[in-house]
């Protein structure tokens, strides 16, 4: 029978299927961190249950960790991290703590170790687990009860989801990135458009992307309301994986690749829904509002709430503009920012840092602007330093930080002050997400870099225009 990629991976993991009951699905990899795991371990302790497969479980510290040297000072964060360490030791789970060369944001660490592979089921108590779908894995976020469930049983009872194809065809123009693609997708289908679906990103524009760019796209599937996002594995995927510490070796490698090649949606398979995006028409995208669907091309202006047909959209836009301190009609390019954040599980990988560094190289960030550059993992940080990217950023006046979730989510010392405006490469522009009263514009790494240099929302093309004008 023909099927979609998501259905094939699902079917390959059904432990038990019974009429009227959810399927019991086997979980290949369970990633954990300090915030959503404490009560899960406590539940195991209370019930006297062990972790069934410590060898399929991996922990890292990311949400709470400070990105400046020194210990955690916030007492609540400290307790969460210490609790994770105690739990991992007691239950025999491998943990990469702060300061370890393998430590980093959980969704950067899994792929970089080669642990995330095509056709796997991957879960984590974090909604951005969808990132791992870039490898053709079925990867989704779960709640604390489910974390406990997977720790105890290595399986989860799940109701099947529907499938949606996101067909991105054509060639992306120079200066248009994966981040712009996913922001455009979310603006098109809305923050609830993916509800109940696994999205499969397809088409030549997706096939042309690197693994890291694919991760950026799958990462934000959750911002479209989807349970997961996936991309079929191909030569790019295999090349990325080959030689990584946990990738298969020798005969296992050959067997794995043979299987991975079968992981694609059959030509006659039918999706429950399809969306077509013309890649060649896309330009750099930024958000103006307080949900990730409130985005527009950088060349446009802040919309008038009255221009929305739907009553709830009108209300939501009006509330967003009030919170963001924006007036309808203001050109997005005229919006001045205070802070630029480059990092997160969306855009904290080496390619993101390289792209941004290429923009700022030999230049200085605008006076009064604070720019934080936060590598997604210790390995990314080390790689960047080997390439001299740290010097490029610090010479430009930016801060070069230690790896962690940082300013993505206001759970550690990196936060915005009330009213402070930030161009951020992260994934959520909710009210208060980056700190109480903070104002977030979601952007790509190169838009973040150009914005830091000019002080207003900008693309690298604006820098070239400036240079021409001066000449």
């Amino acid at each position: 029978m023909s099927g979609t990629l998501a259905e094939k991976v699902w079917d390959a993991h059904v432990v038990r299927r019974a009429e009227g009951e959810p399927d019991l699905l086997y979980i290949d990899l369970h990633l954990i961190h300090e915030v959503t795991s404490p009560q899960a371990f406590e539940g195991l302790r209370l019930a006297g249950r062990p972790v069934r497969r410590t060898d399929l479980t991996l922990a890292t510290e990311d949400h709470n960790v400070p990105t400046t040297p020194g210990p955690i000072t916030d007492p609540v964060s400290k307790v969460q991290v210490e609790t994770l360490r105690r739990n991992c030791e007691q239950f025999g789970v491998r943990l990469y703590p702060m300061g370890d060369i393998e430590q980093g944001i959980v969704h950067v660490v899994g792929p970089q170790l080669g642990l995330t592979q095509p056709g796997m089921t991957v879960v984590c108590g974090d909604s951005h687990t969808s990132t791992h779908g870039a490898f053709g894995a079925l990867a989704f976020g779960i709640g604390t009860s489910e974390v406990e469930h997977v720790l105890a049983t290595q399986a989860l009872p799940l109701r099947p989801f529907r499938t949606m194809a996101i067909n991105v065809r054509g060639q992306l123009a120079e200066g248009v990135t994966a981040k712009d693609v996913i922001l455009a997708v979310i603006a098109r289908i809305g923050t609830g458009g993916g509800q109940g679906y696994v999205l499969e990103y397809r088409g030549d524009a997706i096939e042309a992307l690197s693994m890291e760019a694919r991760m950026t796209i799958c990462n934000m599937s959750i911002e479209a309301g989807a349970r997961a996002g996936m991309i079929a594995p191909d030569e790019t995927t295999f090349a990325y994986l080959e030689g990584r510490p946990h990738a298969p070796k020798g005969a296992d490698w050959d067997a794995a690749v043979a299987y991975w090649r079968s992981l694609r949606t059959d030509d006659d398979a039918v999706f429950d829904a399809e969306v077509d995006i013309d890649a060649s028409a896309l330009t750099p995208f930024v958000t103006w509002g307080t949900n990730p669907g409130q985005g527009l091309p950088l060349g446009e202006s802040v919309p008038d709430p009255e221009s929305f047909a739907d009553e709830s959209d009108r209300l939501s836009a009006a509330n967003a503009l009030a919170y963001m301190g924006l007036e309808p009609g203001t050109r997005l390019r005229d919006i001045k920012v205070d802070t630029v954040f480059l990092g997160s599980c969306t855009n904290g990988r080496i390619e993101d840092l390289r792209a941004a560094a290429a923009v700022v190289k030999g230049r200085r960030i605008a006076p009064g602007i604070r720019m934080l550059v936060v590598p997604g993992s210790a390995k990314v940080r080390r790689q960047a330093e080997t390439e001299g990217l740290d010097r490029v950023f610090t010479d430009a006046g930016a801060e070069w930080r230690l790896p962690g979730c940082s300013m993505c989510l206001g759970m550690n010392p990196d936060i915005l002050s009330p009213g402070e405006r930030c161009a951020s490469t992260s994934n959520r522009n909710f009210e208060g997400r980056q700190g109480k009263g903070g104002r977030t514009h979601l952007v790509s790494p190169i838009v973040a870099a150009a914005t830091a240099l000019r002080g207003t929302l900008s693309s690298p093309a604006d820098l070239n225009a400036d240079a021409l004008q001066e000449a």
Partner: protein
Amino acid sequence: MDKFETHTGVGVPLRRGNVDTDQIIPAVYLKRVTRTGFEDGLFAAWRADPSFVLNNPVYAAGSVLVAGPDFGTGSSREHAVWALMDYGFRVVISSRFADIFRGNSGKGGLVAAVVSQDNVELLWKYLENHPGAQITVDLVARTVTAGDIVAPFEIDDYTRWRLLEGLDDIGLTLRHESDVAHFERGRPSFKPVTFLG
């Protein structure tokens, strides 16, 4: 999870509708790393009021909460169920529960018994006239009994079965442990492990 067939305990009349989960346990109590000990957060704001029902010593051993309609609305936090159970409640009676709360109750082992509002009113009057009186909740017969009042209650068959058998979600999956083990034996050798040999 303990099996639940019948339970007899002190009934607590909570004459309020739309009890949302922020009232059941405010967000400030969610930073904990433990799975127990949430009883101090239960109805924390209301307990500051000396006249609040749970501040009456006669209800100190309360285990059956009789509340107004739309109990458990708002945030999906599982801590709301944990707080009620940590405090000692085994059953909440209401004419209507929020969906997520009802689902979380089933997972946690708390019986969410749907009783008609007319019968809730009768129970409230009875408990107020006989402070500290006991209520018997029979999950087998699906009845609530207090004094002369015998009221039927609704609960979905699947949740009822799980509560009667004492099966939490994990317990249910562990019943199929042999299926999991069988599946594991068939996993390809190229699948990765987190420990490097």
